[in-house]
């Protein structure tokens, strides 16, 4: 029988790139089916939103001009003169927020399903770093339109960096590109947002995805304990991929609706001499930290409250990252119910403080 066009194209590629093993791997890759299968999709959604960010970000770069004199004006230009400029800007802003949200959901689902147990510690660590990177993306991107709110939020945010012990002041000056938030800060944040962070993210994201492919999809304990014939799986391709695609399409429609019906304001141009407007708030994913710093007393023991808060969050982040490595009497601590309690506590803490921040 004569090979079809599809078959001959595959053969041509396989001869040159040896893709048969990849296809075999895809064929063998299986996704367990159980009551928590839904969480397997969260990472994919985050990835999709990241791709939307890259795509719309590159488009915005065509017209955006960093600089004190041009950033706000070019944003106005994008929003008013450029066809569909409003769409891409609003999609970029909305998708950014949803990406951080889904990264958080992805992370907590991993905690509760214990997906980070051996051998997946490195996947966890790289994932956590990716979350931090997403937050840095958000922080640096927030300033780029150079409007009043972003200007003052950045001022407050970078001020907090100044409280880091020993190197705080120098770090603040380095981040700001000077003593104060100025056009120099804007240049730095722009470089960070469009070059440095994407480069780092690309490397770590590749690593993260490579690990997922190498190790396969994690099976929760109750699923592992099942008798072999009771374990149900679906194939990664096409079953899981199609479901992924369906979800991505739904998310896509949601982002578009938000962009059309709830556009982001551009606000007023930043003016360093103007007095700070009322109600400067950080973006919602920084709110719980911002609120914590507010409630910490000015001095804890001998250290300043703000410094204490930073040390607290720095320590908490390190511990959080180290959870899969922790051992207790030779057993991975992650098996204990304490992890669930820790996870619930963390979520409750974050949600409650975020809500109080908006009250």
């Amino acid at each position, binding site marked *: 029988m004569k090979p079809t066009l599809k078959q001959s194209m595959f053969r041509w590629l396989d001869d040159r790139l040896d893709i048969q093993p990849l296809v075999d791997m895809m064929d063998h890759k299986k996704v367990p089916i159980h009551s928590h299968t839904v969480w397997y999709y969260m990472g994919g959604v985050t990835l999709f939103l990241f791709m939307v960010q890259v795509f719309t970000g590159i488009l915005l770069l065509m017209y955006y001009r960093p600089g004190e004199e041009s950033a706000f004006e070019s944003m106005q230009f994008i929003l008013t003169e450029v066809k569909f400029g409003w769409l891409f800007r609003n999609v970029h802003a909305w998708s950014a927020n949803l990406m951080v949200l889904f990264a958080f959901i992805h992370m907590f689902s991993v905690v509760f399903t214990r997906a980070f147990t051996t051998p997946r510690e490195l996947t966890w660590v790289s994932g956590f770093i990716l979350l931090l990177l997403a937050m840095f993306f958000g922080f640096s991107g927030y300033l780029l339109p150079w409007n009043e709110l972003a200007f003052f939020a950045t001022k407050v945010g970078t001020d907090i960096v100044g409280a880091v012990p020993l190197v705080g002041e120098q770090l603040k000056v380095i981040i700001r590109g000077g003593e104060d938030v100025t056009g120099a800060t804007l240049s730095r944040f722009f470089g960070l947002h469009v070059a440095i962070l994407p480069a780092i993210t690309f490397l770590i994201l590749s690593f993260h995805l490579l690990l997922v492919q190498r190790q396969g999809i994690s099976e929760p304990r109750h699923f592992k304990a099942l008798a072999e014939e009771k374990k149900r799986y679906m194939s990664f391709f*096409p079953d899981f991929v199609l479901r992924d695609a369906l979800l991505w399409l739904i998310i896509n429609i949601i982002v578009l609706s938000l962009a059309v019906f709830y556009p982001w304001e551009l606000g007023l141009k930043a003016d360093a001499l103007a007095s700070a407007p009322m109600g400067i708030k950080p973006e919602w994913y920084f709110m719980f930290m911002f609120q914590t710093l507010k409630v910490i007393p000015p001095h804890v023991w001998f250290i300043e409250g703000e410094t204490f808060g930073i040390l607290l969050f720095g320590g908490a982040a390190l511990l959080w990252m180290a959870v899969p490595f922790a051992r207790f009497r030779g057993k991975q601590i992650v098996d204990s119910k304490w992890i669930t309690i820790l996870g619930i506590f963390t979520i409750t803490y974050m949600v409650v403080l975020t809500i109080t921040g908006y009250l």
Partner: protein
Amino acid sequence: MKRTRIIKQYLLIFAGITLLGTANLLAESKVNTCLDCHVENDIMPGDFLEEDVHQHSEISCAGCHGGDPEAEDMDESMSADAGYIGIPSRQEMPAFCGKCHSKIEYMRVFQPRIPTDQVDQYYTSTHGKKLLSGDKKVAMCSSCHTSHGILPAKDTRSSVHPFNIPQTCNQCHGDADLMASTSHGTSQYEDYAGSVHGKALIERSDTGSPACNDCHGNHGAAPPGAESISHICGSCHLNNMEFFKTSVMGQLSESADYHSCEQCHGNHSISEPSDELLNVNESSLCLECHSDGDEGYVAAEAMYTQIRQTDSLYQAAIIRLKDIQIKGMNDVDIQYVLKDAKQNLIQLRTMVHTFDPVQVKEKAAEGKELSAEAISLAGLEISEFNQRRMGFGISTLAFVLLAFAVFLKIRQIDSNKKSD
């Protein structure tokens, strides 16, 4: 050599400074027995202010009232020998103040450019003339400036600052007893406070708006004559005056005994002008003289129609602008065009004073064009807005269709597996 000279110079300068300092000290502690006694016995004048401009320039009690402020004994310090004048009578007052204020040689020490013609001006005023003729109730210097709490007119607390002038004049002009012998009536303040000028000055603190003195004068206060009214109003309402002067109406008003601006607008109670003043119904000012069918009636009707049309088109454009802003669309261009349209409306309404419907019509055409342009720009924005909604609808439809297809595909694969 050189060094000693420098040291000498320094010493001299130092000595000079010390001397000056001591002189200053002495001046500050200058004896003023008037104040000592009057404070001690609690018989200070009721309107006394520490910040009084004379007090501030170190012209103490004796500077005006005469006498010897250094004498310890009251009889001595308040004796005619010491030049004591005491309280001047109302008729004496202009000369009392004028002994300094009319002398530039004296006044320029304090303020080189200060005018010194107040007393002369005063005697040309209705107040001054009446005072000369023996009327003791009329206003003289201290009636407006106070006696012992005099502040420069630029000080907002001063009785003669624009903010306070209407009240200051009203002290007498609002007093029915004082005004009984005149034909003035006492309603000027209320009339003014409700007028367009009064509201601007009193409610919005717009010092550009005239207070009493801006039309009547200060020291030479008098009711403006018929021939001066258009000049007085025209000093601010420049174009109105220019248009009026060259108009048929203006020329008529010169020959006939019309009170130009005042004839239509009134005086103290000038209300915010409204297009209705021009309309041909009860509100019309024109119909006070003109009647249905005559030339003036036709002109008024034509101008009124033009202005209303232009204005309603402008209002319609403003509504579109608001709609655009609420929809979050680009309002920059529309706003700019409407700024011009607003300017045109102001000019158009001013142009009524040409009493020439042809000129008004030309101007109105410009304004209508501007508003129409704004409306068409707004139309573009609204259609852009609708296009966005439409585009969103279409693309959502496509994505939903795709999602549905994927869903069916999943179902199909699943059911195939089951049947295997």
